[in-house]
């Protein structure tokens, strides 16, 4: 136990890194996912093709493979990005494919009649989106997006394997130095569990907030 107390600052810095990776990765995934979802539901064929190809690729490539390519491969091609930034970018890239699917699922869950009715009463495209489609779509998106958030959190641990000093990495470092190993892992596990639970709680709050009140 005193191991954790003695290295509390060290571990907390790791927690900060993990939170940072997760936050940047998730927000990046939301932004990129929105763009992709727009491409995929829009009427412009090349953009739809690019959108689906992107999603298929990044959903199917293992994150570790992407990280290694990005961090060790790109410098060979003359592109050098700082370690932390590369990890965050990779997280955002791969999670955006899942975020895009979550959003597309949400939009598709709104029945056609809703938008047709909205158009029939003379709402413009932006108004249709703002007042009719998106409010209903958001409701169906919340749970899948919470899953994406937890996915980003868990995936951020992979950055440890390529040398980003986040929580998992620091736990492992402490382990190599000291014998009192299990405590560190329990601590790290508890931190991840807490963050995931917090994400889940925010998600269900949001879901309740968006629910239809009759």
């Amino acid at each position: 136990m005193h191991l954790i107390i003695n290295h509390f600052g060290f571990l907390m810095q790791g927690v900060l890194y993990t939170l940072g990776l997760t936050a940047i990765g998730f927000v990046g995934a939301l932004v990129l996912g929105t763009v992709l979802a727009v491409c995929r539901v829009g009427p412009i064929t090349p953009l739809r093709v690019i959108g689906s190809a992107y999603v298929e690729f990044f959903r199917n490539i293992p994150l570790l493979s992407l990280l290694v390519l990005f961090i060790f491969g790109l410098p060979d091609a003359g592109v050098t990005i700082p370690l932390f930034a590369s990890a965050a970018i990779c997280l955002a890239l791969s999670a955006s494919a899942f975020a895009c699917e979550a959003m597309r699922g949400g939009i598709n869950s709104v029945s056609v009649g809703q938008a047709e009715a909205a158009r029939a009463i003379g709402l413009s495209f932006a108004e249709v989106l703002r007042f009719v489609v998106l409010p209903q779509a958001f409701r169906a998106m919340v749970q899948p997006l919470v899953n994406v958030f937890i996915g980003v959190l868990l995936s951020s641990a992979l950055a440890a394997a390529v040398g980003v000093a986040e929580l998992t990495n620091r736990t492992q470092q402490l382990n190599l130095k000291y014998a009192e190993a299990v405590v560190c892992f329990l601590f790290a596990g508890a931190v991840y569990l807490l963050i995931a639970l917090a994400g889940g709680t925010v998600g269900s709050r949001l879901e309740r907030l968006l629910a239809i009140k009759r």
Partner: protein
Amino acid sequence: MSTANRVLFDAPGPRGRRRIKTMTVASVVVLAIIVAAALKQLGDHGQLQAYRWQAFTTVPYLRVLGEGLWGTLKATGMSAVLAFPLGALLALMRLSTRRPVRVLAVGYIEVFRSIPLLLLIYAFLLALPRYGVNLPVFWKLVVPIVMVMSAIIAEVVRAGILALDRGQSEAAEAIGFRYWQAMRLVILPQATRLVLPSLIAQLVTVLKESTLGYAVSYPELMKQGDFLTARTHLLFQTFVIVAVIYVVINFLLGRLAGWVERRLSRRPGGAGPRATQETQLANAPNAGLAPTA
């Protein structure tokens, strides 16, 4: 256009069609510029030279990668074979009428769904050997994967069971089946059919998680790629090829899942009578699953 989202758009009029045409051309041009820039960047740094890629058509290179692929498939297969039944068992436990059993299952599922696999693997690699638990390398990879995957599978199977019509279990009870008989003969076969596509899709997750063999030095595809680059310095090429192999296999698995889903839903009395919210949940591409690896 016919496949475009009908929720958001009416069929475009003449002006709309013109705008779509301009945007089409513009997007193709932008894409071409991006691809050209990327290729130029790679070419300028000599990454496209033929010898750097031709090496991968020779037998020794192929053998190293082939061994890696075999290792990956072995780890994936073993993990799936162990995690699927364990997941089904956990799902049944979570639906049990006995409270302690239920609490146990919920606790297990929630914990292992929220812990990164790599942390677990490091625990097996670094911490547990000090307490006398020292598994062979293969199992240091497979056991953590099974622990995490069984929690994910449990949620998928549970969604399938909940999606079945209540009438099914009531009818089984009515003709005098005991709990296990009803489960074995009525509920589970139907639920399995219902979630089969998402179970196949979960194989993608298992395959992706097996890349963590890289961390335990188990010779799967990533580790073998690492081994190869240490000797050849063809790092970029090796890992592009490795990535392509993963993407192709996972893409095919995804296609298989889609095909199975279409087949089952075509059959009368096949995959469930109606698409309830639960089934959609079970069959969403990432049902209850975090895209972990």
